[in-house]
């Protein structure tokens, strides 16, 4: 059994699944909360759609990290992982995105939910609602960049 390869794949899988979990839960909650507002006034749908989509980006970031990892570990290209330590490094490289993405998706959804309430009461303030929810996106992006740099440079360590 190639434990190194197993760990690297586990990292890639984790980056996608945790982020997709966070995003699907976040998008689902915001969409659910938007329903009563849309039922009351369907013209607010477009404003709410942006809020619904915002927690969905983490799922895509997780996918980017997973694909990048696969291109590095010999699945979609790169040098096959043969050692445990090398696999562990790839696993660790995926963690910032796996954890940061999950947490930021859930918190972003929470901010977006308050935005739904704001749009319901004052549709003219939809920009403020979207901006507030977008602030949380920064931390998903930081997780993405960190994981990205780590995955791309593991091979240069020569382990």
């Amino acid at each position, binding site marked *: 059994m190639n434990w190194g390869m197993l760990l690297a794949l586990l990292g890639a899988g984790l980056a996608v699944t945790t982020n997709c979990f966070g995003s699907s*839960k976040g998008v689902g*909650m*915001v969409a*659910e*909360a*938007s*329903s*009563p*507002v849309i*039922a*009351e006034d369907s013209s607010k749908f477009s404003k709410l759609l942006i809020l619904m989509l915002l927690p969905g980006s983490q799922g895509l970031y997780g996918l980017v990290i997973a694909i990048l990892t696969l291109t590095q570990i010999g699945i979609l290209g790169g040098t096959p992982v043969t050692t445990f330590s090398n696999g562990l490094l790839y696993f660790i490289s995926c963690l910032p995105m796996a954890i940061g993405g999950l947490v930021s998706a*859930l*918190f972003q959804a*929470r901010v977006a*939910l*308050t935005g*739904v*309430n704001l749009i*319901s*009461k004052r549709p003219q303030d939809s920009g403020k609602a979207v901006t507030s929810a977008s602030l949380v996106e920064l931390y998903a992006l930081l997780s993405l960049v960190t994981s990205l740099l780590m995955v791309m440079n593991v091979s240069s360590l020569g382990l």
Partner: protein
Amino acid sequence: MGPGVSKYAYAVSGAHVYEKSFFTKSDMDKLLTAPSYDAVVSMLADRGWPMPDDTRDSGKILDNEMQRAWAWVKESAPDPDLFSVLILKNDYHNLKAGIKCLLSDFDVDLHFVTPSNIDPQLMKEAIETHDFEKLPEPFASLGKEVYDLLVRTGDGQLADIQIDRKCLDEISKAANATGIDLLKEEMEIYTATTNIKTAFRAIKTGKDSDFLERALSDGCTTVSKEKLVSCAASEKKMEDLLSYLDSTSYRSGTKYLSSSPAEYEKWVDDKMISLLLPTRHSPLGPEPLIGFYLGKEAEVRNARIIMAAKQNDLPLDVVAKRLRRLYE
């Protein structure tokens, strides 16, 4: 984000949408200064309040609105049973009213309140046929006990304290079972302030400590039942009671107890509403739904006061002082 709160996303958002039709302070002022009862009814109808055929029946208008709000909570909340404690007092009121009306030949339908957990028709049938087994516990055993007591002794006050105490005990138990802190705190205020009111009235009318022992609920934790009972047994009864209340978190309401029962009721209602406000804008969790229902109750209570004032030509300044704090 606490576990389980995410399932409230739809209900909480729906509550916030519904709350847009709630009366604000300035709306309430307009209602108060409306030229007539009919103008008040018309303003309520404009807000979407369902109107009965006979709009002179203000009780029916208010009942309809509370039923509509409760139906919405039941339909939207992911676990509606958690909120049944909010209307538990109505079930006990109906049991009491039903038994008393039966024994005094009054029309029970006029005295039932809604919404209630037990269908008023079932309650009426069980009481009229003396078949209390049709009711769920603890209503079945309590109903039978109180009915027998009234038939045997005719002591209406004894029957009242038995039902009222059970009501408070069960509200307290049910609120604790929900595990929702806000609900527990709200019901604690309700139970404690009712105990205080009972103790004050009992001492004022010269009742002894045995009476208080039977009348007070064991459910509340912020006011000691033992202390209240011991005040009734002491020499300086009222002085001791007020002095004890000054050491509790209800000290600010003590002055209203002595001045006017209506002012005390208003103080209690306002205190309960104040507790709801910090969680009013929460995006998730059961708290905004509790706020929604109790907020609607405060609004309906104000509408009741205003409608009664319009029907009886009461002075506006007196009525304005009675209006409750709104959920805003």
